[in-house]
């Protein structure tokens, strides 16, 4: 069986990166074994025992990275090595890029692609601001994926963008769809006439996916990063995005998504919205309807409502008939909840939500607080309901596993399910838990193997039929993970599966109410 490999001199990678890359590479077609190890004497000895020690490895030092692949044919092994290099360059924790095949500066990138008009910046935060400013001064739109950008630099970038009419998505912007191209974490959606500006990452993913799943389409989906709505930044990126959608001839309906903006931002939004006749849907999660109405926009209380209302407007259906449909639907939700409530074992009464997506956790918290009252969380709506220990649930609990406290030394929960899987099993052991609620965000950038990495845990929990497991899948049928297959696998594993967070949350809330918690 052929073995090939390479030595990367002085390449520092942490074990997280090496283990994840090795795991993914082992799953490639025709690959039997993969080694990514530092070139210590002991590791070389292991490679020898495994018949994977190549001649070129013999002089490697402790600080050199050895990559070896064993597979069915030379061609498959070569292919896997290339894939590993790609995976490593994606997952590299260190600042320096090792690749010789990509331009090393904005200037050289522009020489390779001189008609580019958008730059995606994902360098260490300290450099990202300067790179963004450089790009903007060259007349290019920017998406800043990086966080920890010095705030003065971030503000300056946003000001330049605002003045020049150039998009500045970010800092810390994880998702966008520009002219049909998905950027960062995003879903493969239908193209259409609905434009979105969002200061909430998974909020944008949820809304754009529901639109696409319900016959609508996206013209542009502009993420801004949550910090943009803070007073310091004054919603400058959000406003620039909104103006772009107002001017965009492909956009007929505009959808705004955010947590409630400050008074200053609201005033600027109102002034900007006066300049358009396009219908605008406003979903400011947790804000009063009157705030949205005052802007001259149509209010949507949830992400799902925002998506469905946008589709209705796009198809020429009036707001009133949409509202009627939403109100009537409450009967269906209650019926579904009644059926589920009957399955709950006596004595079990609590809701436990374990989330990958921050905005989805926030939305569920808002809905359930209204339905059930006190919801404890590591990201509580009120400080008095903060969990004493984020690793331990109390009564009705919602945990956002994407928060820093859970991501120390490990990938984001949208990529690595291990931590949440453990927590799911832990919650299921609690004899007072009635319903475990989970989101599953698919699409580009997220875990590519949810059936292998997530479904077995659900099976484990549901096998004795004591706990209801509810999963909301955010994504579309065109996403690379195969949404239909995932939903089927989850149902087969005993989960109750939805693809709209607000709807699913309401069913869950009603179940808990019916069992009298």
């Amino acid at each position, binding site marked *: 069986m052929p073995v090939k490999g390479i030595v990367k001199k002085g390449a*520092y*990678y*942490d*074990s*997280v990166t*090496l*283990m*994840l890359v*090795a795991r993914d590479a*082992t799953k490639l077609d025709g690959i*039997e*074994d*993969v*080694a*990514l*190890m*530092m070139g*210590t*004497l*002991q*590791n070389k*000895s*292991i*490679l020898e*025992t*495994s*018949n*994977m020690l190549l001649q070129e490895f013999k002089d490697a*030092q*402790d*600080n050199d990275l050895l990559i070896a692949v064993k597979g069915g044919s030379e061609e498959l092994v070569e292919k896997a090595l290339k894939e590993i290099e790609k995976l490593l360059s994606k997952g590299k*924790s*260190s*600042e*320096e890029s090792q690749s010789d095949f990509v331009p090393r500066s904005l200037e050289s990138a522009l020489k390779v692609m001189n008609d580019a008009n958008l730059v995606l910046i994902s360098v*260490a*935060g*300290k*450099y990202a601001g300067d790179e963004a400013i450089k790009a903007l001064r060259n007349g290019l739109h920017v998406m800043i994926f990086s966080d*920890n950008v*010095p705030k003065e630099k971030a503000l300056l970038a946003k000001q330049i963008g605002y003045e020049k009419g150039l998009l500045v998505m970010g800092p810390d912007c994880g998702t966008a769809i520009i002219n049909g191209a998905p950027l960062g974490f995003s879903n493969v959606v239908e193209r259409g006439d609905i434009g979105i500006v969002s200061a909430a990452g998974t909020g944008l993913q949820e809304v754009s996916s529901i639109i696409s799943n319900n016959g609508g389409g996206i013209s542009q989906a502009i993420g801004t990063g949550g910090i943009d709505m803070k007073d310091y930044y004054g919603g400058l990126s959000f406003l620039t995005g909104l103006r772009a959608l107002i001017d965009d001839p492909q956009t007929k309906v505009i959808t705004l998504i955010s947590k409630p903006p400050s008074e200053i931002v609201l005033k600027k939004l109102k002034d900007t919205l006066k300049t358009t006749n396009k219908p605008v849907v406003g979903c400011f999660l947790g804000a009063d309807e009157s705030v949205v109405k005052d802007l001259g926009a149509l209010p949507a209380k949830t992400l799902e409502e925002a998506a469905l209302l946008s589709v209705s407007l796009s198809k020429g259906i009036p707001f009133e008939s949409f509202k009627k449909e939403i109100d009537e639907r409450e009967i269906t939700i209650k019926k579904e909840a009644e059926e589920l409530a009957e399955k709950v074992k006596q004595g079990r009464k609590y809701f436990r939500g374990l989330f990958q997506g921050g905005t989805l956790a926030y939305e569920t918290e808002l809905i359930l607080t209204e339905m059930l009252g006190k919801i404890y969380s590591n990201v509580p709506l009120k400080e008095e309901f903060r969990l004493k*220990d984020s*690793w331990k649930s109390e009564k009705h609990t919602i945990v956002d596993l994407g928060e*820093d*406290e*859970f991501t*120390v*030394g*490990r990938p984001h929960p949208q990529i690595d399910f*291990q931590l949440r899987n*453990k927590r799911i099993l832990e919650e299921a052991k609690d004899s007072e838990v009635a319903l475990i609620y989970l989101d599953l965000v698919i699409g580009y950038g997220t875990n590519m193997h949810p059936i292998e990495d997530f479904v077995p845990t659900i099976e484990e929990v549901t096998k004795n039929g004591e706990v209801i497991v509810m999963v909301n899948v955010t994504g579309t049928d065109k996403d690379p993970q195969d949404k239909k297959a995932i939903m089927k696998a989850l149902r087969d594993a005993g989960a109750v599966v939805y693809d709209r967070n607000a709807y699913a949350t309401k069913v869950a809330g009603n179940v808990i109410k019916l069992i009298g918690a």
Partner: protein
Amino acid sequence: MMKIFSIGDMVNISFLDWSFSIHSVFKEVINLETQYGIVSFVLKSIGGGPNNIVVDSLYENFDSFVFKKEIKFDLSNVPMYDSTFHFCNADKIYLMNNIYKLEYILINESNSKSAAFLLDEKRLENFKTPLEINLARRIQIGFQKLLNFDISAVKTLKGLGYGLTPQGDDLIDGFIAALFFYETCFNISTYRLRKEIYMLALTNNKLSNTFLYYTSRGLFYERFKNVLLSLVSGENIEHTVKSMLAFGETSGADILTGFLKGIKILLEGGSALCQ
């Protein structure tokens, strides 16, 4: 301006006046190579350590500090992190009970690819490819030798496994920590053995050498120190262990496995062997 929350008790701040270079850069840690050894700038999420400087942001202004040496730190009011661990007269049975709790959490909560298979052989099922199986076997054999106080096993374990501080190194680190912990609790010297293991374990992996150096001298990083304190006090065991498990992909679990196996042998009477 970079804000400093704490500075490790082993950081010789004179390094700031001398030349130093970057050893390695990660999202939450920047390791500098100085003439006094490795000094690590870390975020709060990593926590204190003998050679750690805990800061609020790693990248803001860092280039001015590292490359241009434009930034001068005022360290006069910065709290010092105390990496030492003191305790005496432990109740053996009470300690053993707490150690069983640690073992339970380790088996149930640690990464499937961690060395916790040394505690529960069923976990060997997680090692599937020939390379992984060989690695696990080598670790099993090497560590069992070390548990029999055959310190030549250090040479077998050192450098074995993934990452910049491989699993074998972490197991050795945990084992040395167990020797020190035992010494502190029961006033039985393990100094000679700790020193010998450290000397045998030295390689040209400076980062790993640094961790072993501090552990061999009874100086601990915050997360690990918290575990040790919870074991003697019986409080917050679950919390401190889970926090340690979140350290690296398998590092926290591997260090704890090395520690657990080591301390159990010592408590069960193996101390006679180590003297």
